[in-house]
């Protein structure tokens, strides 16, 4: 009897230890977020002791390495915007169209080929897309549009569009496949063609899921580093011209980290201020996208 009790005691004790270890692993994720925010915040604070927030957010020149450095982040923002717009212009139509094809039109045999291809494309490292942009897209663009610079926003944007296309496609397809069959069959029973069912039943029903897939993909594009570092150039310019060289938020961070910026100088802290801005932009976009999905779920339950 005593033996059994001892055994039981040991068991509950070890159960407790296991429980707390597992809990610690889960809570670690909260500390990662805190770590990110803290490391950005502290160093950004040092930056804003030297440069005013107003000057940072409204300045039109970004020249941290000049003798008389200017820290106006607008050129980096327009650079990011240009590349992202090109990427969205490629990824949204292609991604949505292939999602519609996969969920509504494609025979299962074709689906079995297309899905893995999209998965492979999604798994190609971004540095490889950088190679694709620099060595295949740029020469083609230069042939088609004379005057295109070697490093330009368009070719980086196109490569980035191809990279995020699988994300748009798979998330939109998930949204489209959540449309109740009964609704679609209702449409067909009224004599609608496939396109008409897609247009007036599936797309409106899956609208929120599709929009959130766009938001997530665009946020991914804004945060992407290697493609723009390799192919978009390193010249911060206040322009929306896709054929010229630009610098994005992420490309600046990559460049600044490689240069011999002494630890503790203003130009070193600029890296963190730009990182903070990048984090805030992508975080709010992701948060918004998740909220759209969450709301739709609650709506469906209600």
């Amino acid at each position, binding site marked *: 009897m005593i033996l059994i009790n001892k055994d039981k005691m040991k068991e509950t004790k*070890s159960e407790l230890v296991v*429980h707390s270890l*597992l*809990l610690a*692993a*889960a*809570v670690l*994720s*909260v500390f*990662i*977020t805190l*770590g*990110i925010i803290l*490391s*950005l915040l*502290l*160093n950004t604070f040092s930056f804003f002791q030297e440069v005013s927030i107003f000057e940072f957010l409204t300045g039109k020149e970004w020249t941290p390495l000049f003798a008389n450095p200017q820290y106006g982040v607008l050129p980096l923002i327009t650079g990011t915007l240009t590349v992202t717009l090109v990427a969205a212009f490629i990824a949204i*139509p*292609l991604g949505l169209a*292939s999602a519609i*094809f996969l969920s509504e*039109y*494609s025979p299962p045999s074709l689906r079995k080929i*297309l899905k*893995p291809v*999209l*998965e492979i*494309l999604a*798994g*190609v*490292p*971004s*540095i*490889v897309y950088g*190679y694709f942009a*620099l060595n*295949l897209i740029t020469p083609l663009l230069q042939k088609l549009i004379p005057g295109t610079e070697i490093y330009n926003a368009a070719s980086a944007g196109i490569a980035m569009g*191809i990279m995020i296309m699988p994300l748009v496609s798979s998330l939109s397809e998930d949204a489209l496949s959540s449309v109740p069959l009964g609704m679609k069959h209702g449409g067909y029973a009224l004599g609608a*063609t*496939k*396109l*008409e069912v897609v247009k007036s039943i599936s797309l409106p029903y899956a609208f929120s899921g599709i929009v959130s897939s766009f938001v*997530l993909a665009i946020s991914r594009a804004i*945060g*992407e*580093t*290697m493609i723009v*570092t*390799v192919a978009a150039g390193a010249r911060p310019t206040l322009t929306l011209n896709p054929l010229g060289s630009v610098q994005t938020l*992420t490309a600046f*961070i990559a460049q600044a*980290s*490689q240069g011999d910026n002494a630890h503790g100088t203003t130009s070193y802290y600029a890296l*963190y201020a730009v990182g903070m801005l*990048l*984090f805030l932009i*992508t*975080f709010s976009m992701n*948060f918004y996208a*998740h909220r759209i999905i969450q709301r739709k779920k609650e709506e469906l339950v209600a």
Partner: protein
Amino acid sequence: MRNNFDYNKRRQLVNKIAHILFAGASFVSILVLLILLSDLVLRGTKYINLEFFTNFPSRFASKSGILPAMVGSLWLVVLTAAISIPVSVAAAVYLEEYAMDNRFTRFIKINISNLAGVPSIVYGILGLSFFVRTLGLGRSILSGALTMSLLIMPIMIVASQEAIRMIPNSLREGSYALGASKWKTVKGIVVPGALPGIMTGIILAISRALGESAPLLLVGAFSFVSTLPKSPMDSFIVMPIQIYTWMSKPSADFKDVTAAAILVLMVLLLTLNMTAIVIRNKFHQTYE
């Protein structure tokens, strides 16, 4: 009557055109993959020989090799796996098996999905300020592996959670009915059952770590190393950074060397992905 007929014919035609357009958009992905792979093969294969795998990088394209980059990538991936797998699986087990459905749990879950969307270069900034500077680990393999672990843990946790969720409650109840404790049930029933799904998630996350370069630009990974790393505290270079370094060289020869290195990396990644797909299909079990 005649009018009606035309109208219907037009609707059918529009549907057919849309069908073709949608199909065309889907085939763009196949086309891009084919163009990319054939370009890599055409440019890269002439540099792929034994020396390419045993040489160090060189000023001359013909003598360049990827040995330090491959060794560095191997170190990084093994260390990253050793750090991230236990923590991720533990977190997933906690969230699915132990956690109550309360505010705190929901907060952790939302936090993890938000972490998965943080740009990789931001993890690099965290690694630079926390591991490299605050903890004083320097630009070492360990700093790189810790940073990479933080980056892939959200992916692993979510994949493991999904795998664990597939285990039906009846199996757990059977285990409890035999007198097993909670931990014994988790250890003996839940995790083994979810293992194929967990493995698939782990392999995909590891292949992400193998191809990722942005955070390593900040944390470590020098553009040139003259010796092979021997301990986790040594400096290192990985394959994607080696590719980046070669890509930045203007000469046409180095374009081909770059293509060769990308080809090696892509073969490694495709092998990993295939393994994940095979595991998923072979051990895929559905419970009624």
